[in-house]
């Protein structure tokens, strides 16, 4: 782990007495390697380590009796600051019923997250309605329907609806009819380079109001995360991030890269395949995790 690696370095350095700038650079080199191994984007890792360097060549570290621990603490604080920004409340205001949309790359966990969010909201006194606009993936609607059924959540489908807009309008009518107050909209997965599909989402959000547009992101995402965020930002303007598969050993550096770049709040994290496995985001835990 990071601490063991650094203890080895610092043991060697401590015997020298005071730290020199070269020593600090050696430490920062190791730090950058750790961040990159955690899938933090190349540029974000560079910015982070240069920020740590600015603080580390100051008195607090150079004359500290435990310089190693100080440097680690500084890095942790810098990461925590990037991740910790916005409040993490769900925004369900605006038109009634409120609409929440799940978007993201193929296989990131949107459909499962839709089900999880339904359970999460139901437990908090809401009456959610689940609807899928995914007409591309085989058995996509069936998957959401089964999740809804398992969790005893309302599910809407109109096989006659010919566009996502139409499906959502009909879902809204159904929700009003049944006094349901939140609509959770599952969409088909799409790549950040599939412009036609991104256009489809853009048209959808121009016609329908969504109080939340979540980018559902797999914690294993690598260096491409920054390009993914840039693309979804320009087509969809997400209001927040839901990070999935955090129960794996993926360090999740992609979330740091994206938040550093976009400032989006991370509202929730998926921690397993079951519908109750969703949690509030803890920036402290994520910072420690990224540092290995």
């Amino acid at each position, binding site marked *: 782990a990071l601490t063991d690696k650094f203890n080895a370095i610092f043991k060697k350095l401590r015997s020298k007495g005071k730290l020199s700038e070269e020593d600090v650079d050696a430490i920062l080199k190791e730090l950058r390697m750790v961040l990159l191994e955690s899938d933090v984007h190349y540029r974000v890792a560079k910015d982070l380590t240069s920020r740590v360097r600015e603080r580390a060549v100051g008195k607090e570290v150079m004359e500290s009796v435990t310089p190693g621990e100080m440097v680690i603490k500084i890095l942790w604080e810098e990461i925590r600051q990037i991740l910790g920004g916005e409040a993490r409340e769900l925004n369900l205001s605006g038109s009634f019923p409120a609409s929440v949309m799940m978007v993201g790359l193929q296989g990131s966990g949107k459909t499962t997250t839709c089900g999880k969010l339904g359970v999460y909201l139901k437990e908090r006194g809401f009456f959610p309605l689940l609807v899928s606009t995914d007409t591309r993936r085989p058995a996509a609607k069936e998957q959401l329907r089964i999740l809804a059924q398992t969790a005893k959540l309302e599910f809407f489908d109109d096989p006659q609806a010919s566009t996502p807009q139409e499906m959502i309008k009909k879902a809204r009518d159904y929700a009003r009819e049944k006094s349901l107050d939140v609509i959770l909209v599952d969409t088909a997965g799409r790549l950040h380079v599939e412009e036609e599909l991104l256009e489809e989402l853009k048209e959808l959000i121009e016609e329908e109001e969504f109080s939340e547009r979540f980018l559902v992101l797999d914690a*294993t995402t690598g260096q491409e995360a920054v390009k993914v965020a840039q693309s979804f930002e320009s087509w969809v303007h997400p209001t927040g991030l839901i990070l999935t598969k955090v129960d794996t050993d993926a360090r999740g550096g992609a979330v740091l890269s994206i938040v550093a770049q976009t400032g989006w709040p991370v509202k929730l994290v998926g921690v397993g395949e079951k519908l109750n496995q969703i949690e509030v985001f803890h920036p402290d835990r994520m910072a420690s995790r990224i540092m290995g």
Partner: protein
Amino acid sequence: LWSKKETGEKDWEELEELLIQADMGPALSLEIVEEFREFKKSRGGDDWQEWLYQKLFSLLEGNDPSLFASAKEGELKAIILSGVNGVGKTTAAGKLAYLFRNKGEKVSLIAADTFRAAAMEQLEVWAQRAKCRYFRGTEGADPGAVVFDGISSARHQGDTLVIIDTAGRSHVNKNLLAELEKVVRVTKKLILPSNLESILVIDALAGQNAFLQAQSLFPVADLSGIILTKWDSQAKGGIVFRIGKEFHLPVKYLGVGEGIEDLVPFDAEEFVKTIVY
């Protein structure tokens, strides 16, 4: 990158950035940059791209991209697909079924994901699209038992190839690793070693965690190859160099889209060119 004789720190950084952003990982990228610095010192050639192309190509050398290179004729063949959640296993199963059916094989798709919502329905649609036989068990049935019955049924029907789709699993879940190990063990009881391909499906957009996936699943599933999906995302999939270096696992196919024909045989030259140029 460099046209002047003296290259400074900034130039090595650009090479390192290219490699890191291709998801090659910090250790391997550093190793390659160091090697190039040595090369430049001693030989001083100017075409870094040519050097990098040769270097990366050499990392993939000796890898056989074909499936069933030494399979025994007239005996049933099997492909097991494993990997973490959402990488594209079920889709790859459908694409492979279509591909091999067009090669004249009689294919059975076996739905060994008895857990996830609509997993069996999803594979069934692919079987219909590929026009091949489909075998499933009951909801929540033991995957090992489904595989046993599926292979027996395929053999009985005169099929030449079974493709086994398994549930997504995290390699940190010991129970799921044990489940996969059982599926592979059951398959090995019924299929000759020369006729079995155990394929790890990896997402091209994944970062260094894909290495940990390969590391854990390699002994459990006795992996013989990789399918790298979502290569149409323009992610470089450099992690396969790191995996190849450590486990000598060859990439067999690239997934390049969501359609049934979107599976292309791995071409090392094209793959390396995409990273370098």
